[in-house]
């Protein structure tokens, strides 16, 4: 009996092994076959890759009011702009990576000479220049009658450069330059034939005017209960948001802080349907007498210099869309960027923030700008550029007052807002000694006492306990996820937790 069972087991194992080996062989052969069948993509021959995708979108304002020669059509201008900006782009890449890739398409042979020699010199000296150009104001001076030659004066281009030698930062500079360009239309490409810097380099003026904060902020960070970190996704429901805003307003709060995910909104090509949803949220906030802090660039963490023009495009579109809305209160440039200091480099992140603050403030001169630092230590960064300072606090409440007063001392002339604070009431398998709902209520009561004593403007985290947390927020670890789920004033069943009574007052 046992022998036959053994036999059967042996038989089954053999069959299973046989089948899996066969499958593996078939899979292997098919993989080899597929590999051999794929040649070079014929598309590559046309090297039109660079034409298809958007790599470089600095702010560009054309002046075609004084064109000598042929009248310029919109189509011609579009083609010129595309090739002109690609020329800038390939040059930035060339100086960053010390490569010649793509240059030939956008510069004629004689124009390339100096560029290539510069790159060669930089390669030899281990120099890498990460640069971008942010504002272009080209005017077309001349367009030949046969449409083959054009002269452009690009005034006051703001050029940002970060120069590295052996990977260490040598110099960071933002210059303002004015160049004249001669471009020729050669086999379908507008190629740069001559470049002439026609004015001495000026230093960029990054001065912006300060905007004051107009109200005492008593707020809350908001995500709908069913779509945390995906507020503008498919589950977008105006009714739910309206109800939530009503709860928030009735609870005695006057401000909400919401988040715009960079990729979700379409990066540089901001999706109109997302903007529509954003407008709906602002309208509902207005209806419920709430002011809105919009946090930009959520889930973005690259900061690459060559990405800047695309980031700016993204911000420009969103800000221009919202800046006149009465419910808008402030722009939070980025949530907790100091967490990227280590992985991306502090100077890289700060440079990005600096230019972004400048960008946002030039587009919208009315609304204040802040950065949501994750702790008090980082909050002094760029304190002169933001209109009010905000920081997040998840540490021991006993230290809050001291930390806040210290910060006040360091930044005496600006409003300091506590942009996030809260306590998770999770106690379960993953954290048996976690805080109870009573602990959470105590925490909020205590916080409100401190806040009212020190007049701390606050934005708490958050209205709801969430049912699911995307992995981008706290990673995959279950104890972190579970903890993050229970920060709300209202539990997963929709009932108010004990802490709710301390949502806006002690």
């Amino acid at each position, binding site marked *: 009996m046992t022998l036959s069972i053994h036999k059967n087991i042996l038989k089954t194992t053999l069959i299973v092994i046989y089948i899996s080996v066969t499958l593996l062989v078939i899979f292997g052969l098919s993989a080899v076959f597929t590999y051999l069948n794929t040649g070079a993509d014929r598309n590559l021959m046309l090297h039109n890759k660079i034409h298809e995708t958007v790599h470089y979108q600095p702010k560009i304002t054309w002046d075609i009011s004084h064109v000598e020669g042929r009248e310029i059509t919109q189509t011609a201008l579009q083609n010129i702009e595309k090739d002109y900006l690609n020329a800038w782009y390939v040059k930035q890449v060339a*100086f960053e990576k010390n490569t010649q890739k793509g240059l030939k398409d956008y510069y004629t042979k004689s124009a390339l000479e100096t560029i290539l020699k510069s790159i060669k010199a930089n390669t030899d000296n281990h120099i890498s220049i990460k640069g971008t150009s942010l504002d272009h104001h080209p005017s077309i*001076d001349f367009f030949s009658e046969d449409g083959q030659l054009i002269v452009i004066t690009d005034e006051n281009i703001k050029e940002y450069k970060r120069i590295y030698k052996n990977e260490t930062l*040598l110099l960071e500079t933002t210059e303002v330059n004015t160049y004249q360009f001669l471009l020729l239309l050669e086999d379908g490409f507008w190629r740069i034939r*001559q470049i002439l810097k026609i004015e*001495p380099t000026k230093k960029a003026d990054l001065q912006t005017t300060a905007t004051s904060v107009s109200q005492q902020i008593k707020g809350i960070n908001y995500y709908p209960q069913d779509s945390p970190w995906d507020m503008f996704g498919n589950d977008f429901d105006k009714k739910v948001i309206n109800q939530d805003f009503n709860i928030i307003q009735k609870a005695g709060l006057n401000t909400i802080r919401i988040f715009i995910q960079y990729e979700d909104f379409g990066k540089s090509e901001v999706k109109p349907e997302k903007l529509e949803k954003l407008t709906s949220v602002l309208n509902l906030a207005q209806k419920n007498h709430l002011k809105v802090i919009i946090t930009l660039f959520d889930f973005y963490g690259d900061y690459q210099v060559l990405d800047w023009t695309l980031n700016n495009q993204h911000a420009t579109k969103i800000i221009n869309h919202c800046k006149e809305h009465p419910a808008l209160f402030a722009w939070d440039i980025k949530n907790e960027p100091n967490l990227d200091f280590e992985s991306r480099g502090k100077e890289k992140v700060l440079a990005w923030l600096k230019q972004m603050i400048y960008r946002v403030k030039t587009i919208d001169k009315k609304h204040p700008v802040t950065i949501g630092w994750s702790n008090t230590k980082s909050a002094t960064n760029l304190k002169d550029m933001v209109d009010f300072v905000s920081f997040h606090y998840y540490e021991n409440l006993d230290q809050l007052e001291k930390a806040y007063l210290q910060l006040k001392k360091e930044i005496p002339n600006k409003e300091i807002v506590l942009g996030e604070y809260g306590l998770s009431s999770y106690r379960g398998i993953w954290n048996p000694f976690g805080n109870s709902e009573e602990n959470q209520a105590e925490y909020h009561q205590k916080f409100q006492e401190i806040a009212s004593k020190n007049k701390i403007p606050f934005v708490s985290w958050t209205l709801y306990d969430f049912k699911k947390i995307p992995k981008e927020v706290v990673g995959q670890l279950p104890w972190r996820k579970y903890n993050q789920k229970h920060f709300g004033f209202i539990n997963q069943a929709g009932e108010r937790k004990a802490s709710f009574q301390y949502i806006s007052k002690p």
Partner: protein
Amino acid sequence: MKNFVLHIIATFFIALSSYAQNSNLGMKLQNAKEEFVAGNKIKLVFNKISDSIPDMYYSNSYGNIIITPTANKKQIVYEVPEFMSQKSGWNHWQLTQKYKNIKGDFYIHPTQNISKIETYLGPPSIEVGDKDYAMLVVIPLDDYNNPVAKNTPVLIQKKHLNTFEQNTLPFNGMIAHKIIYTNRKAGRTFISSECLNETSKEYTLEIVPAGPTNFNIDFERVHDYGDGNQITKFYTSIIKDRYDNVVADGTSVTFRIENNKGIYLQTFGTTINGVATAQMVHPDHEDTWNIKAFIDGFSESNLITLTYKNAVKNFNIDFKNDEKHLVVGPFKSFMNQTLPDGLMVTLELFDDNEQIQKINLQTENGFAIFDLHTFIKKDKKYIIKINAAQINKQLEIKI
């Protein structure tokens, strides 16, 4: 004594404030100069104040580099590499690290020597008249491929037939340009330019005649018989544009012939010296042709009418019972001579009103001989119809 102390303190503060203003840490450019000429050796010399020797960031119209200096006991020297100092325009330099506030700009002028003149002339051909024009763009380049200095005079010379013109244009820093207007006389315009004693190549601008105007046609033929053999030649008058220029050689003219039956025939010709000729073989019967010529989209000719007389007046048919051959002919032409080979003769064979065969044959030596033995069976009646030169004949046979 008190004054002296005050003085020292004041000096100290002045020194301090100027230090704060420049914050150049005592390092200073020793040979400041605001202008250079392309190709000049450029060395920026600084006094050496400590052992820390910063690199220099340097940028011009085309690129950015870092210059590593050489230093001796007293001086730090930054030598701008040739490929940078050869390009005209504003140049910018800035020291790095803690000396980053020390910076400056200077201008590099193009040289006063022309190595080549780039000329762009387009479009390459324009139409005669008063409206059309081409544009000449001239870019004189110096020894290092820089555009010459602003306001350098550029001389443009233009010759069309017997007129000669000279203009001086100011160079605008990138280009000098001129509109070359057309002329009422077609021909070739020669253009050249000159700058600082260097001359360009010769450029030509073709001034092509404008659209052709209406014209006349005429014909030439050896006789007026429709013998299907001779050729009638059609030709146009000299076709000209509205400025009296003969149209370009190779202009295509379509001759359209409408015959008696309202059928259109077409023949083509292209012009040489304004005249286009075309040919058409005579009809093989009596006919009247109405002929008109066109240049598509532009112009047309007068209408001419030609008549052709019958060359073949009659012919015989003879069926040879033994060989079962049908002999058609002899065909005689207008002087009773044997008709030249090639007249089309059509035979239709009917069996009880049903056509069983149709044969086309061309005449040879005045005859067309049809071999019918494969189609005809014994003791049967057939009807044969013959058509040639629009003459119909009929014959009934039985073997």
